[in-house]
């Protein structure tokens, strides 16, 4: 049952961290809306998602190919984002709103 104990070791602690992270991001948003603060808020969101993924969905005890799947999926979405930035964000090389 070692795997089971690993599962349940720290649900309340993880939850506490998640709530604290939410509080921090709210405080940051109240302070300012500058780009650095926004970046920090998204960094915190990523950490929160990572905690839920590893401890609540138990990615930490899954076999390796599931981890590869998660990384691959994120890579696919990153590629989609990078490929579209020049066309959709910068709108380079064509007339806009024509």
């Amino acid at each position, binding site marked *: 049952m070692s795997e089971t104990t690993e599962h349940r070791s720290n649900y309340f602690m993880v939850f506490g961290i998640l709530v604290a992270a939410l509080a921090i991001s709210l405080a940051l948003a109240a302070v300012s809306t500058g780009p650095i603060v926004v970046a920090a808020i998204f960094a915190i*969101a990523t950490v929160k998602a990572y905690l839920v993924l590893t401890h609540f969905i138990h990615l930490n005890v899954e076999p390796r190919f599931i981890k590869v799947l998660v990384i691959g999926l994120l890579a696919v979405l990153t590629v989609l984002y990078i490929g579209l930035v020049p066309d*959709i964000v910068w709108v380079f090389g064509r007339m806009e709103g024509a």
Partner: protein
Amino acid sequence: MTNSAIIEQPMETATELPNSRMAIWWFLASEVAIFGGLIVAYVLVRLHHPEWGEYASHTINAAGAINTMVLLTSSLAVVLAHQAVEEGKLEKASKLLLTTVAFGLVFLAIKAYEYTHELHAGFTPVTNLFWSFYYLMTGLHGLHVVGGMIAMIAVSRSVRRGEHSARVECVGMYWHLVDIVWIFLFPLLYLAS
């Protein structure tokens, strides 16, 4: 029934993963691809329109923050339900699932309040592209909440009868994903203004 030993032993498979959990992982992957595609599209269009920051300031931050808290707590409830199944406490697991459903209802109620408020303020899905994205993304997420609630009611009934206890984990994994999506939607649509 509390201490019963009726815990489903998953069928042996060629990997250490039972079929159900494997399938849920792939299902979650397809969901992430859908939401991910939508979020990527939103981020790209938003970066092209810096003026959207002003639109985003009309979303109700407090409601979004409370909803984040509601979903986080519901995630804790559903992961505790899974733990209860592993300990053989099926009755408790069933109750925790229904607790999660209650949190889902609270979430939807707050969301409904927000929609009402925003529609009254004149922000409809066709007001401008920001609001189109807002209603599309939160609406799609809300549908996933509803779907998860229906699944959890069904699972809580069957697990009370001692059947399909492995499904608690599956429905929990799905619910956590819905939570993760909200974790990103909240700063994307509310905080970044």
